[in-house]
């Protein structure tokens, strides 16, 4: 028993205890430093985010070229409102996603055939990237009225008759993919965005079935003050 508590063994034990406590202190210091750095970084991020805030649509009006293709021109006015918006998990200070609802009134013309007017309501999903690029996919449903640009003639009991503003009503359903980008104006106090969208729309009924309209929309949001979520 006496031999077990020898001086030599006691010194060794003390040395081990001392070393362990020193290591603990050092680790604690390192953790504190790391936490400090993290807090500093978060602070910087927050400051940066203040400088370039996230933009969520609270309600935007968009005007656009809206044509069948380049030689079938038209114009569209569209209102978009965010139903739900949330930051992305990665780089949440800049990237975000949205579900929006929209209402659209548009007109376009096929110079040899018809003038068209459409009114739609729709839903769209939009992702905004760190540099302000936006990708979106949406669905519009509504009504279309086509009015013939040429005279519409017929024969009834041996006489010619002419219809004025002849045309037809139909249903309009459109699926579209879009790309755009947010743009800041006036030292970043105002914000706008441009978009390019490709629509594939169906008009029913048309003849005995349906008609497909590939549409191109190129437009801008009316500028509005920068908003935060």
């Amino acid at each position, binding site marked *: 028993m006496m031999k077990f508590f020898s001086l030599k063994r006691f010194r060794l034990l003390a040395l081990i205890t001392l070393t362990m406590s020193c290591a603990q202190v050092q680790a604690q210091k390192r953790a504190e430093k790391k936490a400090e750095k993290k807090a500093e970084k978060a602070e910087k991020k927050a400051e940066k985010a203040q400088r370039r805030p996230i933009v969520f649509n609270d309600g935007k009006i968009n005007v656009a070229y809206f044509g069948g293709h380049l030689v*079938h021109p038209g114009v569209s006015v569209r209102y978009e409102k965010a139903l739900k918006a949330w930051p992305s998990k990665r780089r949440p200070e800049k990237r975000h996603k949205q579900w929006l609802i929209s209402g659209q009134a548009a007109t376009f013309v096929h110079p*040899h055939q018809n003038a068209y007017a459409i009114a739609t309501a729709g839903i769209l999903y939009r992702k905004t990237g760190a540099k302000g690029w936006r990708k979106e996919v949406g669905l519009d449903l509504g009504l279309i009225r086509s009015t013939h640009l040429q005279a519409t*003639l017929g024969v009834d009991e041996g006489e010619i008759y002419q219809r004025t503003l002849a045309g037809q009503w139909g249903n309009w359903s459109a699926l579209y993919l879009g790309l755009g980008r947010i*743009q800041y104006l006036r030292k970043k106090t105002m914000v706008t965005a441009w978009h390019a969208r490709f629509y594939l729309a169906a008009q029913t009924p*048309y003849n005995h*079935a349906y008609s497909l309209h590939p549409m191109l929309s190129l437009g801008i949001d009316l500028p509005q003050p920068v908003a935060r979520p």
Partner: protein
Amino acid sequence: MKHTFLPIIFLLLTFFLSCKPDAPFVERFFFEHDGARLAVQVDGNLSSNVMILFLHGGPGGNGYEYNQGKYTQLLEEQYAMVYLDQRGQGSSQGRYSGDDITLQQFSDDIDGLVDLLKLRYGTEKKIFLAGHSWGGTTGTHCLLHTPIQSKLAGWIEMSGAHDIPLINRSAIEMFLTIGQAEIDQGNNVEDWQEIVDFANRVDTLNITEDQGGVINGFGFRAEGLVVRLEGRPVAEVASDRFLISPIAPLTGLVAGQMTSGQILEETEQTSLTDRLSEVTIPTLLLWGKYDFVVPPRLGQTALNEIGTADKSLVIFEESGHSPMSNEPEAFVQAIIDFVEAYR
């Protein structure tokens, strides 16, 4: 900020690109008939007192395709040309049931349009009906199933498909004879051999609808393989002029395909040769010698059967299914000779 101007510049460019000049024409209108609004374009020399109403091919074609090329220019200098987009095709619109896609309805539309042309441009106008390919189906059907003959000065059938079973049998014969001759001369041997092998497998007494489709496809392909036709101008299609076409290309394509699908079964069974004796107005038959799609045999049988002495057949030696494009001058001259004789 500078990025904001890029889309604006693009918008402006788009707008100015949209301002394409329109080709000259006398009149465009829609003809309302039985739920459909048929697109009609009148071009050419209206003062000539002669109107030629063109029925396009297909089913699924359009009148616009026939308003292209040299022959159109030459004919329009002489006469007024009426280009019709038949029901459910090209720019024609309306709202009706799929049950209204029948040959009888197409015929009634044509008859109704002739009434309208007479009322609008004067009863003194001499109207000639002209049908190419499937337009020959609807045109011949119209002559036999409506009172139109009394309103017309003449009938011009161009590679007209008035008897589909006869087309299929005759095409098989042409594949075998011309195909073998081309193989013997060492021309496009591999392609011709495939066509000849197919033709040898077909039972000509029992040709199915599917085989009819293959024969039609091989017909167009065979025409492209004939060495003698190399270098000849070919027919234009609407998609060649995508941006300036009066027909929305996708709309025209979809409508045409759907109409074609609807009418195909009735068309495939159409055989009007036995009733051609009821055609009693002056008739001009125009065929290409190398037309594998609607073989010249149909022109020869039509010449024998048609019930008038005022009839003639012109075979174009260096033409396929579209002699108007392959040999435009000779084609136009044949029409002018006919029209001048019977106007």
